[in-house]
């Protein structure tokens, strides 16, 4: 059998030790009416056939287009060091470090992950990972509710659609209320509207969530929004893209109590959606409310510095129904990838990644403007922005045939918005080449002429 080392002699020896003739005897406890007769699945494949099959499937995906698609998931250069480390069996075939004496590798890398993210976010408590940016955003929203004992959360409309939808799904359970804060024509969150929403004394607000950069790539007035939230006794949650934190003000600095985000840009491949890395960080004041694993430094009986999972009474395996979350298995290996990525890039390398993205994006902006597609919004942006393209969905499809993946047609997410319906959300990163930008602009020009 594929990976079981038992020979028939081994099986016979084990059955002999148990004094039974057949393994069937071990399944007698399944009531006969509930017994299954077998599995109707394709025949087993040898490794050779399996590799052939999987290579063929992978070959049916198209990853060769000039891509300007970001919208929360970004193509970045991943240093070769990352895969060398995360493909070490000592890391990827271990589990939750329950036995610290033989898990210092995992424990210390988590501690380092926490430290690196603390440096990026300016917040002191970083959980060891959540499922993805959407789940982390939902957990952040739930944290504000637990912490304030209020039931209502306000989230900017300009947060990633899927994060809002996921948060709404999570909110279903508790009959909690999630309301959208509208955006201004310049694409940023409407702070006036926020103020009004916060003013409803009947329905006090637990948390206010804004994205930075927001879903349109734009920079939000975080300082002001945080102030409004705090004035109303609410917590402020920043939903961030971590590479941007190399050049943008850290959430801890502008008053965020909690920061959530998608860690995929930190050395993790797109993989059609996962596994990714849910980032969740908070101030020390909220340490007892943060869900997920925390690793702390301590010493062993000889006084040697070492690391251990700590404050575990927040977690489900100890606190059960009173736990801060049901999370158990997390995305630790992705956190390790991010740790290796950040250690390899360093502060200046990460800044270069963010800054090159900004440079490429401006080159893209100019090229598209030259092809008649102007930016949709006025607010400043970092490396992703919206352009106005009449009949955007059709144009997007036509560009595919020319080898260009022209970002995301926003009609998909905002079908009812007359402005966004004709917009493409496009991004550039350090891997975007001038040649690709040129191809995009040329193809667009051709289509429009």
């Amino acid at each position: 059998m594929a990976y079981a080392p038992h020979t028939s002699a081994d099986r016979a020896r084990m059955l002999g030790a148990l004094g039974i003739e057949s393994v069937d005897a071990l399944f007698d406890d399944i009531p006969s009416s509930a017994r299954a007769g077998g599995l109707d699945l394709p025949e087993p494949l040898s490794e050779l056939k399996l590799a052939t099959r999987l290579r063929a499937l992978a070959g049916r995906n198209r990853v060769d287009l000039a891509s300007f698609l970001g919208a929360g998931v970004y193509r970045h250069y991943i240093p070769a060091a990352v895969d060398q480390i995360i493909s070490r069996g000592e890391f990827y075939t271990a589990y939750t470090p329950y036995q610290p004496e033989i898990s210092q590798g995992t424990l210390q890398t988590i501690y380092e992950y926490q430290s690196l993210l603390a440096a990026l976010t300016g917040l002191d408590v970083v959980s060891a990972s959540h499922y993805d940016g959407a789940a982390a955003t939902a957990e952040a929203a739930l944290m504000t509710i637990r912490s304030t004992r209020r039931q209502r959360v306000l989230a900017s409309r300009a947060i990633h659609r899927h994060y809002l939808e996921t948060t709404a799904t999570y909110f279903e359970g508790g009959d909690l209320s999630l309301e959208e804060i509208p955006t201004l024509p310049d694409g940023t969150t409407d702070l006036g509207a926020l103020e009004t929403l916060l003013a409803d004394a009947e329905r006090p607000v637990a948390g206010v969530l804004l994205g930075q950069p927001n879903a349109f790539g734009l920079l939000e007035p975080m300082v002001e929004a945080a102030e409004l939230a705090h004035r109303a006794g609410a917590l402020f949650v920043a939903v961030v893209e971590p590479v941007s934190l190399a050049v943008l003000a850290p959430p801890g600095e502008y008053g965020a109590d909690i920061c959530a985000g998608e860690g995929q840009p930190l050395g993790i491949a797109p993989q059609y959606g996962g596994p990714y890395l849910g980032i969740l960080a908070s101030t020390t004041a909220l340490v007892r409310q943060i869900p997920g694993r925390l690793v702390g430094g301590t010493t062993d009986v000889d006084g040697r510095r070492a690391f251990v999972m700590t404050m575990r009474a927040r977690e489900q395996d100890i606190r059960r129904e009173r736990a801060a979350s049901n999370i158990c298995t997390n995305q630790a290996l992705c956190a390790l990838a991010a740790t290796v990525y950040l250690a390899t890039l360093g502060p200046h390398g990460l800044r270069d990644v963010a800054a090159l993205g900004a440079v490429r994006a401006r080159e893209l902006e100019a090229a598209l403007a030259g092809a008649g597609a102007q930016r949709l919004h006025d607010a400043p942006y970092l490396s992703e922005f919206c352009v106005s393209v009449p009949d955007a969905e059709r144009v997007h499809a036509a560009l595919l045939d020319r080898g260009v993946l022209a970002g995301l047609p926003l009609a998909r997410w905002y079908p009812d918005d007359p402005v966004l319906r004709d917009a493409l959300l496009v991004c550039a990163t350090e891997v975007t080449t001038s040649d690709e930008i040129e191809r995009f602009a040329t193809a667009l020009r051709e289509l429009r002429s």
Partner: protein
Amino acid sequence: MTGTLQQPGRELNAELEEAAHRNELEVPAEGATAATDGKQPAPGPAGDRGERRAVGPSLQPTLNELSRPGRGGTVVPHAGAEALNSIPEGHRRRVPAALPELNEPEVIRHFVNLSHLNYAVDTGFYPLGSCTMKFNPKINEWAARLPGFAELHPLVPDELAQGTLALLHELEGMLAEISGMQAVTLQPAAGAHGELTGILMVRAYHRSRTDTARTQVIVPDSSHGTNPATASMAGYTTVTVRSNERGGVDLQALRAALGPQTAAVMLTNPSTLGLFEEGIVELLEAVHQAGALAYMDGANLNAVMGRFKPGAAGFDVMHFNVHKTFSTPHGGGGPGAGPVGVGAILKPFLPGPRVLRDEEGSYRLEGDGERPTSIGRVRAYQGNVGVLVRAHAYISAHGGSGLRQVSEDAVLAANYLKSRLSSAYSIPFDRPCKHEFVATAAPLKRETGVRTLDIAKRLIDYGFHPPTIYFPLIVEEALLVEPTETESIETLDAFAEALNSIADEARQHPDDLKAAPTTTPVRRLDEATAARQPDLHWHAMAGTETPCPS
């Protein structure tokens, strides 16, 4: 929601109390250090480290301690200061993030040396009960890294993603066949995430029938912590029913707890005691009679593939743990994946978007809002696809006969190991187990004062990862042992001999056990201080705030 704003003081006490209960905060027993304060073989900085590590430096400094201003490689080209001119000052970070500065040789050596401090399936036997630490086939790692899979953006038009969509659709079908369920969603990222997805569907189902009085979820006392925690997250209160003396659910107690207020019963089967629920037929009948739905926690499916199909038996919903049953790696804590299978009545509520296959054999994702009954998204995209590729590969390598053999071998190994341990340890539920079994060291503790924790730590000195301990909570001094099918009989024998010899040691040298482990890079940790004075990230760092080169 059950969360309340706790008083820090109260919370801390509660925490310490609970942790102490779990033997987590034990301060070292007297004499615990005696075993290593015999004289070092020789002086020198590595003399004392080397005693524990064969090769290379010992415990690694943290990255910040290795950092030096100005170090670093050239991964990407440098962007000049003007690159950010268009970003308003007020939005900009004023000093560079205090990330460490290292170059690649240091980074690699750091993580390689850290990796050596880990125990893993690739280095030894890891019988962590309830976690199914089976071997992770290497072809699966290769497959997940194929550029066609790895580089695919989750928001590409369907026509660019036909390979992955086909794979996901096939995998859904395979899991449906294995579970006997009608439909499967691959979105949840882990078992607990699958539980939440499943219970939210249950909630949506009752709500769709305007049956809003159902506010409770019933779980057995042997259940995994994620079950009650999930119920809470989904807005339910938890009712716990006790187990009977055979380790099954006490049917009478269950019947008493069931009622029009019951939304669902969450049952782990085989249970976390490693036992198949003998009364499954009656149990399901009772649940359904009460108008509740039956959730099966399928974390232990490794025991029953090809022998028992939860969907066919009458469960309405279940989750899979692909990082357990289908051998995707545990990754030091994750990622895994927790697909959910449902019967016909819950199908309309599955989270979106589903993967659909049209008549010509091409695949597409369901559109936004295409199925209004859906509970919505539970995550941003289609699932932990990189993990699911591995699961697909694993199932394809085995086929139906192979998976059935997997379960047979897992169960046979567990029963064999149980029989080999049954004289030195007490087996509370002595009937054939499934993939794992519980042993207890309670009699040994009464006799010798040696606790399960000490036994576990001593196993480390014998070269083994300890089983899960103190879980399930209902068994005193529990050892939950899950050998899986991928360990040879020689390994099982060596492990049994180690545990049996530890039982002898407990009688003859109990202090040795309390001092264990002695062969590890670090020894028992001061967990109390870790919790009382949290040190959750490094502070000072050489290299902080180096200005960027311009």
